[in-house]
């Protein structure tokens, strides 16, 4: 994946996260398009680019809630780093690997976010993690699966993570 294509992907993810995600929530849980974009960035662009993208997207998301400016930037950059580093060490074209990374990345992002936001209040943190994060992670994985199969049919190697021949 080229950086320009990734930038477009991030912009689309930002739009979807702002406009579409609230409309398609299930049991209060929304799919996380930002993490999805970062994971796809990690498939073809190494670690640094997704980390910077995560930081910038997080900062933009934070501008909605100025009181916690930098919180989403922190959570997304760390998540991008973890996801991209993992994908570098695993067989990234495997669907199960991708699904696991997406699932874990969302839980990591939410963990960082809730930890700082609720200042370590274990009760609320656990409740939110169980109530929203797990469902949200599953939901995002389902969307990731759909995207993966579409990418396979269209032969988009940047998304499927298949090596070039």
């Amino acid at each position, binding site marked *: 994946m080229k950086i320009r294509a990734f930038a477009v992907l991030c912009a689309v993810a930002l739009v979807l996260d702002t*406009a579409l995600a609230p409309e398609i929530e299930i049991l209060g849980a929304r799919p996380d398009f930002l993490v999805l974009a970062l994971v796809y960035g990690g498939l073809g662009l190494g670690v640094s680019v997704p980390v910077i993208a995560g930081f910038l997207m997080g900062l933009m998301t934070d501008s909605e809630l100025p009181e916690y400016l930098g919180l989403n930037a*922190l959570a997304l950059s760390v998540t991008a780093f973890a996801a991209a580093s993992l994908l570098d060490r695993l067989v990234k074209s495997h669907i199960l690997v991708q699904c696991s990374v997406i699932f874990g990345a969302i839980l990591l992002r939410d963990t960082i976010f809730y930890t700082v936001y609720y200042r370590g209040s274990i009760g609320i943190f656990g409740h939110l993690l169980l109530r929203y994060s797990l469902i949200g992670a599953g939901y995002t994985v389902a969307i990731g699966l759909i995207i993966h199969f579409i990418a396979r049919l269209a032969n988009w190697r940047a998304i499927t993570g298949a090596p070039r021949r």
Partner: protein
Amino acid sequence: MLSLLIRLFRGNRDFATLVICVVLSAIALSLPPAAKTVVSSIMSVPILRPVKRIAVAADGLTRIRSENARLRSLVMKLVEERANLVSLGHENDRLRELTSFIVGFAEEERFDLLPATVIGMPGGRIIEGIEIDAGAASGIEPGMPVIVPDGLVGKISRTLETRSLVEPLTSASSAVAVTIERSRVRGIIRPRYGGSAELLDWQMDYVPARSDICAGDRVITSGLGGVYPAGLIVGDVTAVDEGPLTMTIHVSIAVSLSTIEQVFVLRGLVAPSPERDAMMQMLLRELLAEDAPSDLSDRGTP
């Protein structure tokens, strides 16, 4: 320490990027609230505003779609309600006409009127009978006159428990003792049929030659014979044929029998009752809200 960090970062560019991002995030988090607001507004104007616009547009589109569906169902409901209201309006007009007809009787002529609905009209081209939804259980007996606000319909020929058959003026056996309202000339009116048994008009017989009758005269019941009370409107004279000994008077009846829906059976005269009149007044005031009560008192009610 610094040289150690630089060496570490040189060897691991990805980690260095992460550390820089984390440090920047921590700086952003630790900014004073005023500075955070300024940074947020700077970021949201060029970048997030277009995204928000798209979000708002998408949200608006969804809302418009659901509102459209809601308005469509509302329109359907209103159309249905309007149809009902139109129907109720017609019924209301008809009932107003009937109630004003009841009040229109002078006190000394007040009949015991029983309202009934037409439920059938046996017969082909000629209406031989009219079936109504009131019978012997309501006190109806054969021979009782049946009227509508426009005039005379006929008389009861047969009664069942809850239904009755009316012999209308179109019936071949119908004969009504009538009088010309203006000149008080009397006669008997009967339906006249053509060669193929079609109803031509009504004919007033037994009228002496050179009687004072002309086209347009109103024909009313004379009260002779004891079946119909005097003064019920029957119709109007349409033509007069002079003969050597008698005159033949052609009459058009006032009631359109094929379109009547509600009728009144005259069960006899009613003794004046102040309680009944008061109740009638109250009911009519409710029904005819816009008609002043003085209108009613002008019509002879106490």
